[in-house]
């Protein structure tokens, strides 16, 4: 704990780096996963193929994926973000698919029967109703991005992994503990905040928190 207190500004800057790396990765991952998930929800035949491929990517050990990318991207933030985006795809796409295909078919039929176009159905009915499940995916993806992101320090992407790697290299248990505590705190708070958002959205989309009258 000594190290954490003495070097608080440094640890804070590493937390900042870690957050930027994780947030950036999550944002890019979502932009990619949403359309893929929407298409997979509509086209059943594509679903297993895409989820299969994403499953394979997910099983590649993270360190080897980081290193594999270096010849193409060099060191630093870029290969880290690319790898983290790739890892997050499985959870995000799967939850988009589950959220969209899990909607009561009667609701979708009513939307069609009332004359909504496919785009209107998607934006006004399907995505809002799938949102709680999509957000659950976002939360799980964020947690794995934060965790795997520590390894990214190995390829010069910075973040809290630095404390862990430096600590190991210089046999400084204080540093390792500081890194572990900081990563855990980051993950726990991200989880808590995202969980709260998820609950609020869940209640809103199920129409259970509305004020009566």
């Amino acid at each position, binding site marked *: 704990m000594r190290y954490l207190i003495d070097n608080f500004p440094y640890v804070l800057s590493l937390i900042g780096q870690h957050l930027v790396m994780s947030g950036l990765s999550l944002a890019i991952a979502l932009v990619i996963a949403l359309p893929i998930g929407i298409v997979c929800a509509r086209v059943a035949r594509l679903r297993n193929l895409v989820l299969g491929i994403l499953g394979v990517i997910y099983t590649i050990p993270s360190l080897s994926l980081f290193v594999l990318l270096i010849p193409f991207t060099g060191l630093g933030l870029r290969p880290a973000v690319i790898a983290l985006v790739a890892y997050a795809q499985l959870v995000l796409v799967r939850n988009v698919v589950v959220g969209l295909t899990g909607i009561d078919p009667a609701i979708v039929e009513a939307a069609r029967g009332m004359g909504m176009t496919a785009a209107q159905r998607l934006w006004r009915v399907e995505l809002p109703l799938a949102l709680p499940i999509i957000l659950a995916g976002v939360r799980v993806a964020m947690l794995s991005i934060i965790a795997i992101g520590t390894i990214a320090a190995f390829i010069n992407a910075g973040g809290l992994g630095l404390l862990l790697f430096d600590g190991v290299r210089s046999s400084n248990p204080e540093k390792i503990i500081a890194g572990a505590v900081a990563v855990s705190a980051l993950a726990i708070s991200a989880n808590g905040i995202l969980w709260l958002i998820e609950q609020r959205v869940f209640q809103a989309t199920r*129409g259970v928190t509305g004020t009566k009258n």
Partner: protein
Amino acid sequence: MAFIIADRLTKTFPGETRPAVDQVSFEIKQGEFVVLLGPSGCGKTTLLKMINRLYEPTSGRLLIDGVDVRSMPATALRRRIGYVIQQTGLFPHLRVEQNIAVVPQLLRWDRARIEARIDELLDLVELPRSYRRRYPRQLSGGEQQRVGLARALAADPSLMLMDEPFGALDAITRARLQEELLRIQQRLHKTILFVTHDVDEALRLADRLLIMRAGRIVQFDTPLAVLAEPADDFVRDLLGADDVLRRLSLLTVADALASDGMNGDHTAHGIQETLNPGDNLREALIRVLRSGGQPLPVVENGRQLGRISPDIIASALTRKTHALPD
């Protein structure tokens, strides 16, 4: 000209050899309440969904108000047709008012007009205006289907398609909503196509019954005519046409009186049960039997029109069975 004309409509689903709806032709007049009746899998829901093009016909033609439904985009067609389904299909994330406003919004009505329409519709389906801000989950099943009905009526479509709308409700709620629907229909004169497999519901609501079996129309006529002269044994069994009470429920006290004329001057002695001309004969028979088989006076506006006895009911039944109204 008829409001809806179906010309050899056929739907064969991919991978099926037998068509779900097979060369069906019929005409429906504006303002008619037509009930599509038949056992599961007879094609009645498929037929209904071809009308708003949720299913595209494999062949055949469908005209609504003289216009081929395929001459316009399906979404534009559907916005002009009210659609009510069994599970209500209300959007759980939208408040009652937002649910009702969906089609007017798609049609780009202005805000003030939509607001006024929401109040008007809640009044029409007899829900308190305070329900506007509620979510579907906060309503009972019957209330939800009232919202479903209001939502379908929102843009004032002249045609309503209803797919077993009361099928998931308990008997009492269902009966009340049937009554409401008839009351609303008397006011609005919509053309309604209503799918059900509940015979009593069909007889109660229909101006005409369209009875289907295995993708074809077996009989298309008024409830009374279908009951009196079922096209075949299938229809007879389906309707329980031999059920005398069911037939009586379609005749009124006035029907029986008209034939019997004024049977004398009966002075009412003491406080006695009376019948209204509008009561159905099933109800009348029950009350006559309950009063020991004594004839009961029929009274309207304090004036006695005649009396109903078991004999009169019996003769009304046999006469109506043979001489059909047009």
